[in-house]
């Protein structure tokens, strides 16, 4: 049903980063921060399409591939969860820190192919970060898309990221519904409690003319995909984005392959139909 666009181009050495600057750091949750990045001249480092990736490097410490969660006229946003050596160090830096950035890498969400369709965005935890780039794109081009549903879940209310978007900005958009759930509530939580896949089933979305964009922890993707299937969604109506250990970002270094496809170059965005043809090794 949807065709995923694949393109890549590069003029300068794709493996050498450009020096950029972190201009702003926002705490999203106790372990997720959003880093706003500009070039040293104060411009946007590059113009990614929704779903694309950037290789973010704390020079001398390490490089990591992250999805670009938002972009503006002159900046890129990366929402990064503290999980390993690089991200631990990243969470310690202060605004003004100069970092290395290369990209954009990978393919993009099928923004064109989805035009005229209803959109169902499903995110879990930090999995909302890549999906958010598409959500923002859809709102910027609101008339191109039908009804928009956003389902988002995290472990606890404190772990919900992009709270402004979830509770203020997005619900205010026309013909849009935002459904939030947490695995475990607290005394101040009045919303839904439960896992995302079950919540999706509860909400019982209609598969008619709808495209699903799904990202979260592997186990959530697996069970959401089953739930969606039960509800009548076909494999090619469900788009997801994968992660793998990456080093080069340009399909050379070898490690992020799933079968003969490289997640950094041919992915990270795949439809469930495409994934069904690939070995289940991710």
């Amino acid at each position, binding site marked *: 049903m949807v065709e995923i666009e694949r393109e890549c181009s590069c003029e300068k050495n794709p493996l050498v980063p450009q020096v950029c600057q972190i201009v702003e750091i926002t705490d999203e949750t106790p372990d997720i921060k959003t880093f706003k990045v500009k070039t040293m001249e104060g411009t946007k480092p590059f113009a990614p399409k929704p779903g694309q990736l950037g290789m973010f490097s704390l020079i001398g410490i390490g490089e990591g591939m992250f999805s670009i969660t938002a972009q503006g006229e002159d900046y890129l946003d990366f929402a990064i969860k503290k999980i*390993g050596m690089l991200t631990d160090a990243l969470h310690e830096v202060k605004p003004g820190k100069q970092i290395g950035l290369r990209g954009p890498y990978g393919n993009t969400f099928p923004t064109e192919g989805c035009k005229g369709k209803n959109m169902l965005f499903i995110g879990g935890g930090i999995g909302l970060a890549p999906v958010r780039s598409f959500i923002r794109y859809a709102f910027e081009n609101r008339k191109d898309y039908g009804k928009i549903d956003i389902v988002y879940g995290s472990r606890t209310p404190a772990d919900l990221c992009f709270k402004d978007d979830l509770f203020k900005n997005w619900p205010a958009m026309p013909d849009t519904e935002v459904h939030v759930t947490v695995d475990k509530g607290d005394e101040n939580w009045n919303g839904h409690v439960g896992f995302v896949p079950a919540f999706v089933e509860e909400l019982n979305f209609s598969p008619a003319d709808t495209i699903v964009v799904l990202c979260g922890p592997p186990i959530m993707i697996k069970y959401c995909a089953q739930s969606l299937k039960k509800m009548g969604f076909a494999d090619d109506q469900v788009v997801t984005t994968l992660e793998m*250990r990456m*080093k080069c970002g340009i*399909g050379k270094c070898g490690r992020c392959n799933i079968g003969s496809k490289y997640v950094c170059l041919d992915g990270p965005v795949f439809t469930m139909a495409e994934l069904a043809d690939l070995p289940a090794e991710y």
Partner: protein
Amino acid sequence: MKLSKSKVNQALDMLAKEATVLVPMIVDGVSKFAPWGTEGKLALDIVNTLLPPKDALFPQTEKMYKYKVSAETAEVKEITDSDKQVVFGLRSCDMHSIDCMDAVFLTKGYVDNFYSRKRENLTTIAINCTKSNPTCFCDSMGVDPNNAASADMQLIDIGDAYVVEARTEKGKAVEALWQPLLEAGEGTATPISCELKLDMAGLPAKLRGMFESDIWDDGYQACIGCGTCTYICPTCYCFDINAENHGQEGVQFRCWDSCMFSEYTRMAGGHNPRPSKKERLRNRFMHKLAYFDERYNKNLCAGCGRCVVNCPVNIDITRFIEKVKEVPVNG
């Protein structure tokens, strides 16, 4: 034109004035492509060196850029040096592996500048094989041991001399340089073929459907998970990128990595899509025999037999290929 074997040393001397000339040598007991003029014994008679010449294009450790960092600032300076190199006396299988690396590093959207700079500066001079090792099976993998089609120059061993066939501009430049040494003469070599024959017809396609096959359940146990097979393989090209820090400055480098190592695919947070030797060995064989073919339309196995000889526990890709052949289709 032909080059008498007695003049090979002179020919190498001439080349070495203009470039680093890598020739098959035995250096301290190890056969490898070493710079002509360094200590070692020229060994043009061995079929395969232990270490392939891939180091010339894709060094085990390659510096990419220097950096300086402070608490706030960062500075990056790309390292672009690349010298002229000649690989002399490489075999068809090793030439095939350069073709494979060209496909990886120079196509599919991005050109790898570190590789391409070295590649542009490299001249390849191949020599046909006059005998094969019992572990050689290149002709089963689509490689002709008598002729390396993509080399800049092919030398054909006719006994006491090599017939010189320059095929590209780079090859013709070498021929011009050698002009004073060359004599008129033609000749052919008796073509050889490998004793070890494998039937590769339809194998990549068949393997693609065998990801879940129980063929993988047997044989991986013996693997010790070392990197010998991948490091001595002429075609293995996977790499890792890391930094070497010295206080506030340092150098970013890339180095060979091996899909046989457990941390190769392990992500931050601990998830590893290929957690055991079974998945890792499957990926290696699949990559060699199926995935690469699917992506680049070539066998990533050149049939040189190095891994067959050197695996500490004799894991043998040729026996695996035979085993795949025996599996009934749709079975």
